[in-house]
């Protein structure tokens, strides 16, 4: 009986397996294959003739200053975006995790940005951060800064080409927009975590004479650690392949200060017809995401065994 059921179960999920096998893993395979070919023009792609070129496309990419900039940008964007979302999410969640009048209203307000499409966020924050022509004709947030007497803080935002080491300062407005959009999400995750902590534990800590900071660090944080890890995975894979927000907010920016690998992939593939190099960028992005996700999957699978 049990055996039969197992067989039936497999039969039922087999269409899904087939579809995922073809449309996810099959296409990943096709992309990897394309990245090893010489399909760098529409003509060669159409001919369908596969000429193996080894890792030439990858070598070209890593020698390309725009791609190098992209890798740095992704790194800094991911680090600051993760840090910002986790910190703000945690602070908001701690503030809301107490009997507060209208707490639910705030909770919804902080969560709302997540309901927006990233393209909308990008367009709106583009208006906010459009610098205008400084100093006489500011726009967006610079007008506000001028009105409240903080003229010295007026800045060219995402159009600056200044850097600190390899970090492009123009990424700051983009990071702010991304954190604004997704910190509500981390707040919700942390809030759920905090609410799951049994009252008796905090009670006990208080009876033992722990102060607020000790209660948080010694009692609550251990509960929140796995949540932090999940949030990092989810946000990390969003930020490593971010396209829509950056594309609608700043584009590549002057000197590619806000360029991302995904934008470069789009331009290589659909504007320049360099399908092989575009595929190579896609494969590199996949590897980056895999580096983040696979250890997580392995640890989860181990736990469930």
């Amino acid at each position, binding site marked *: 009986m049990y055996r039969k059921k197992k067989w039936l179960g497999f039969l039922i999920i087999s269409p899904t397996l087939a579809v995922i096998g073809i449309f996810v893993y099959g296409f990943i395979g096709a992309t990897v294959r394309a990245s090893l070919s010489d399909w760098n023009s529409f*003509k060669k792609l159409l001919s369908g003739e596969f000429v193996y070129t080894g890792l030439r496309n990858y070598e070209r990419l890593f020698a390309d200053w725009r791609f190098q900039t992209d890798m740095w940008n992704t790194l800094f964007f991911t680090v600051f975006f993760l840090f910002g979302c986790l910190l703000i999410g945690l602070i908001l969640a701690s503030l809301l995790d107490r009997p507060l009048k209208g707490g639910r209203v705030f909770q919804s307000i902080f969560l709302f940005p997540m309901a927006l499409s990233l393209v909308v966020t990008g367009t709106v924050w583009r208006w906010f951060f459009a610098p205008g022509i400084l100093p006489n004709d500011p726009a967006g947030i610079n007008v506000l800064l001028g009105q409240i007497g903080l003229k010295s803080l007026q800045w060219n935002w995402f159009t600056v080409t200044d850097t600190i080491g390899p970090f492009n300062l123009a990424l700051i407005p983009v990071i702010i927009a991304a954190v604004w959009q997704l910190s509500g999400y981390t707040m919700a995750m942390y809030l759920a975590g905090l609410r799951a902590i049994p009252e008796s534990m905090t009670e006990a800590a208080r009876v033992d004479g722990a102060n607020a900071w000790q209660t948080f660090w010694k009692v609550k944080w251990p509960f929140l650690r796995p949540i932090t890890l999940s949030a990092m995975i989810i946000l990390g894979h969003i930020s490593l392949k971010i396209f829509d927000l950056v594309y609608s907010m700043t584009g590549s920016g002057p000197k590619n200060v806000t360029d991302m690998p995904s934008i470069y992939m789009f331009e290589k593939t659909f504007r320049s*017809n360099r399908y092989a190099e575009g595929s190579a960028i896609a494969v590199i992005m996949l590897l980056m995401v895999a580096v983040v996700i696979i250890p997580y999957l392995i640890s989860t699978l181990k736990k469930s065994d």
Partner: protein
Amino acid sequence: MRKFIVLMCAILIAVVAFGSQVEIFSWWTGGGEEAGLLALIKLFNQLYPGVQVINATVAGGAGTNAKAVLKTRMLGGNPPDSFQVHAGMELSDTYVIPGKMEPITGYLKEWGIFDKFPEDIMKICTYNGEVYSIPVNVHRGNVVFYNTAIAKEIGMKTPPKTWKEFFELLEKAKKAGYVAISLGDTGKWTATHLFESIMLSQFGPYKYNMLWTGDQSFNHVALTESFEIMKKITPYFNKDHAAGDWQDASRLIFEKKAFCNVMGDWAEGYFKEMGWTPGVEFGWFAVPETDVAFMIVSDTFGLPKGAPNKENALRWLKLVGSVEGQDLFNPLKGSIPARVDADKSKYDVYLQWAMADFGVKALSPSIAHGSAAPESFATMLNDILNRFVSDLNVNQAVKSVLEAAEEEGYIVK
């Protein structure tokens, strides 16, 4: 309800009986462009009442999205009956060379319209001796649009002919507190658009055109000179040029914040839409030292191989190539007809100026708009200029252009 069903059946039978459709693919989804396209479709329906026109449009500036969709369809063997494409390499390199297009030279001769277009534009539409698309409209790329009020204020009497005169004007505009020349290069191509006009001025139309046919080397002092001029222009840009697109740049002129900008004459349509009258609130002149040339940006229609309704596609091509078709479409879109025998009285004062020049000046293909070079070269040039405008390193830029040109198989020795 029954009547409705009967009616539906009748329509279905009619469609099956005639089975006649034609699918026209374009990115004309708004403004005057859409109005022009719809007028053409209406005329087509009057001429061929049995044929159903499927208006397949994909929105998106400069056709970026439409082009990606079209590529997928052509690749998958599901071509539309006819599609909008910029004249030149955008068609040849992408579709003609891989053998996806039918030559239409024979039809043009049969319809007697082969010699109704200027020779230079036909050359751009030709690959290996065969014409592959019919130009519907022409935009001019090498135009400077300016605010006449500011021009008066800074004492511009006649349009500048040389870069020297032009820079003197820019300096005056800057001293008077205006942005001298506006740019909006979020999408990158606007910087290339400006640069290609500078290249045209330095190479001259004759040599500039030969760059693309492989008869003139890129390794020429004119290329360095072009970057030097570009370098001299950059301090006059609006500082926030990276935060806007061409509409934002034109808007600065409209709001009397900027003196001028270099843009294709779709900017003229933009100013008119904002309520300005050509020649009154805004003026124009050819980019300095390019007065002898006309940088063309032209939309054309071609015939893909394996078009499902070839006969109807040919009818469509015949219509868009006719004087009626062109004179119907272009005044609405705000461009000039590609034919030399069109009716001038239907066009405004700016377009008449462009038409007069179109007939007599040397025609040069645009890089930024896909006519001169393959899309991959245009994208590389976009990147080079995007970098150049920030770091102003002439040697580096020249070196990169030569590398890009060599990769595309142009002469660089």
